[in-house]
């Protein structure tokens, strides 16, 4: 047992003395900071809006009242956080502003916009609002479009209501055809001011699974993702490599010449990989707690999850070392595995993951399991809530270690 620990502790010392060792500490910090910076996670912590309002320039050429109503609605205080509206008189100038990238979209309301919707021809007449967009901003464009469609849908609902009511009343002989326009306008106006007394009718009552509302810091999801990304680099690129390096440098045959069984040496190396991984995660977690005031959650849960996550990840590192032939190979494959697992396990999306089949495949990565665990803890979960996560990681690590041992034996890597 002492031999196991001695080998493991030696590897821990070597890893942190290694010039490459700093990457596993600087890497997660640098990327967490960059992600917090670009995703607005720091702004959320300070209460500022993470995303600035979308700049839209509006040209109202409409000769009726609907255009004015739309501009007033778009400039309403309730939409200030979403839309930043500027009114312009020239459509050509508005398009130029968009071309120059000053605005995401130009809304040009045609001269007959009101007439097209409210006039006698009504619903059949086409005179659409021109939405001239800067195509490099698809998300903001879709936000603006949905806002415009919301307004138009409301107007259309009022117009359809009045037309249906009027045609019914004429059919029933309750009004004369010549009264249609007057009555239609009255009904339409009542719709806008909600004085008609006709309710929309259907309400959906969402019955979500009861969960305690917890305010989770965005960084509490980003930091574990980056920590897991670089943990994979550490256990495969550095940990796995150390096993082959012992053989290439000739220190393995020297160890095997002592009264130490090959299995014990491999066990010691595994402990070394786990210790390096645990130290890395502990430092990252400790430092982010101090620097960013990040709350990782229940301490015991965090400690157990760290060990389980490292165990699961180390399994992949050892397996890689079992199959690789040179230290260069294990380094390159380790980096590839880190990136691939980062993608599949959702580390690049702050812990989110693909849905469906890809989401299921992502479960082969320790990243997915561990990030899920850290999210549970950040959401005020405890060790008891982590049973499935811990079990998943432990089973993963055990299976991978077993396969690795078989491969090591078959290849005779632990013999003189």
């Amino acid at each position, binding site marked *: 047992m002492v031999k196991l620990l001695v080998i493991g502790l030696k590897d821990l010392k070597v890893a942190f003395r290694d010039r490459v060792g700093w990457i596993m500490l600087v890497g997660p910090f640098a990327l967490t900071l960059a992600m917090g910076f670009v995703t607005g996670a720091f702004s959320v912590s300070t209460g500022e809006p993470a995303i600035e309002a979308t700049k839209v320039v509006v040209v109202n050429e409409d000769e009726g009242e609907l255009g004015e109503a739309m501009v007033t609605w778009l400039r309403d205080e309730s939409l200030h956080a979403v839309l930043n509206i500027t009114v312009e008189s020239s459509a050509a100038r508005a398009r130029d502003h968009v071309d120059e990238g000053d605005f995401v979209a130009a809304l040009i309301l045609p001269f007959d916009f009101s007439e097209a919707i409210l006039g006698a021809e009504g619903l059949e007449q086409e005179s659409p609002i021109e939405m001239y967009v800067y195509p*490099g901003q698809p998300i903001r464009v879709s936000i603006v479009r949905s806002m415009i469609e919301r307004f138009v849908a409301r107007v259309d*609902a009022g117009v359809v209501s009045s037309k*249906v009511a009027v045609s019914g009343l004429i059919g*029933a002989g309750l009004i004369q055809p010549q009264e249609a326009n007057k009555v239609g306008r009255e009904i339409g106006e009542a719709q806008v001011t909600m004085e008609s007394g006709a309710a929309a*009718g259907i309400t959906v*009552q969402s019955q979500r699974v009861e969960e305690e509302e917890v305010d989770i810091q965005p960084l509490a999801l980003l930091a574990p993702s980056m920590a897991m990304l670089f943990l994979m680099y550490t256990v495969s690129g550095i940990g796995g490599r150390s096993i082959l390096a012992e053989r290439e440098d000739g220190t393995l045959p020297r160890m095997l010449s002592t009264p130490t069984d090959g299995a014990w040496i491999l066990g010691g190396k595994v402990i070394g990989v786990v210790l390096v991984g645990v130290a890395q995660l502990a430092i990252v977690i400790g430092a982010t707690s101090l620097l960013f005031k990040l709350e990782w959650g229940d301490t015991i849960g965090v400690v157990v999850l760290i060990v389980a996550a490292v165990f699961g990840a180390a399994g992949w590192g050892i397996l890689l070392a079992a199959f690789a032939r040179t230290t260069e190979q294990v380094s390159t494959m380790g980096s*590839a595995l880190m990136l691939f697992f980062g*993608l599949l396990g959702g580390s690049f999306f702050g812990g989110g993951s693909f849905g469906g089949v890809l989401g299921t495949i992502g479960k082969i990565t320790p990243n997915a399991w561990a990030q899920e665990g850290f999210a549970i803890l950040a959401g005020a979960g405890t060790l008891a809530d982590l049973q499935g996560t811990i079990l998943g990681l432990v089973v993963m690590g055990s299976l991978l270690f077993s396969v690795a041992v078989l491969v090591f034996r078959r290849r005779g890597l632990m013999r003189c």
Partner: protein
Amino acid sequence: MKKIYNIAWKDIKNRFSNPTELMFFLVLPIIFTYLLSGTIGSSGETYQLLVVDQDQTSLSGQLVEGLDAAGSLQVELISNDDVEAATEEDNTAAILTIPAGFQECLYRGDSIDLALEETGDEGAYDAAEQQVFTAVEQMGQVILAANVSMVEYEKRGEFADDTARNMYYEESYIRAEAAFIDLPQRVEMRTPDEGVIYERENASNVQASAGQLITWVFIPLLATAVVLADERTTGTLRRLFTTPTNKATFLLGTILGQLLAAWVQMALLVIFGIHVLGIDWGNSIPGLVVLLLAFSLAATALGTLLGTLARSTEQAGGLAPITGMVMALVGGCWYPGELFSDTVKTVNQFLPTTWALQGLNDLGLRRLGLVEILPEAGILMIFAAVFFALAIWRFRYE
């Protein structure tokens, strides 16, 4: 010239002597681009929205039809008795119950609640909720119109009996439904290029592909640092300079080796984007070539500079990917740059990744040509000049 070519060829052979290099050169870039470009969409989703129709009337039937058309989740009708078993199914996103008396309530002009119950996966429930909201909103507009029609009738007259009332409601409902279907287009999307219809999906795909292309070409080019540091620390650089070879020849050869590999990689990724993902990189091939050349020069220059700053091969090996990842991320290659704050947008003006991405977006999304992307290409060339100048100033033989 021959010496430059020999140095370049030696570096290329060295780099690809390890077959795993192909992972970074092509395999991972293709996987990342494919998965992140949105091409796979929601093909993996197999969730169901189960509906218990306790009302069994024409209006409840119309709501079920509307649900089917309102989203991607498969809608299936089940009976009250099957609810418990259905809740246990893994692919059940939610269960919607349409209560008895649904139609009657609406005919009277009263409000009614539908219960939507979450059964498992939160993401699937969100999709189900969205689908139900869309269908209910559409039906709600029709119901509102029918209700208005009823109210207006009753202001002016009385129905003979309930049958006449219900019949009038149904007629109003049908007329309203038809009117909503026949509504003309109210919003017309236009882009600077008149020939292109704006599609959000295409725009997102171009952005994601451009971001991945930049990331996966940028990081290996920064690894020029590793080549330089390795030559210096292993002493091969000193040995090389005992021959009649000067500093410029060595640097040009090393840079050319990296650039040639990057050009092949970029060409393959662009071709993959066009033929497999259906990405439209725009109308200007000269523009694309000039922009990518300028970007590759800027990236290689930065890699060269990093190579002169790193003290060891290991240090260079660590510095290159981290610098590359952070610059790609802040430059908008991983997340939509359009959502970045003004502060981030100011900071990222100092990164070559930002300008390369903007240039690719201008070509692929705004359909601009060579002349219009010259400012971006020019800025990338300025980056290249500054980085190369600093690298030559910092260059040491040992």
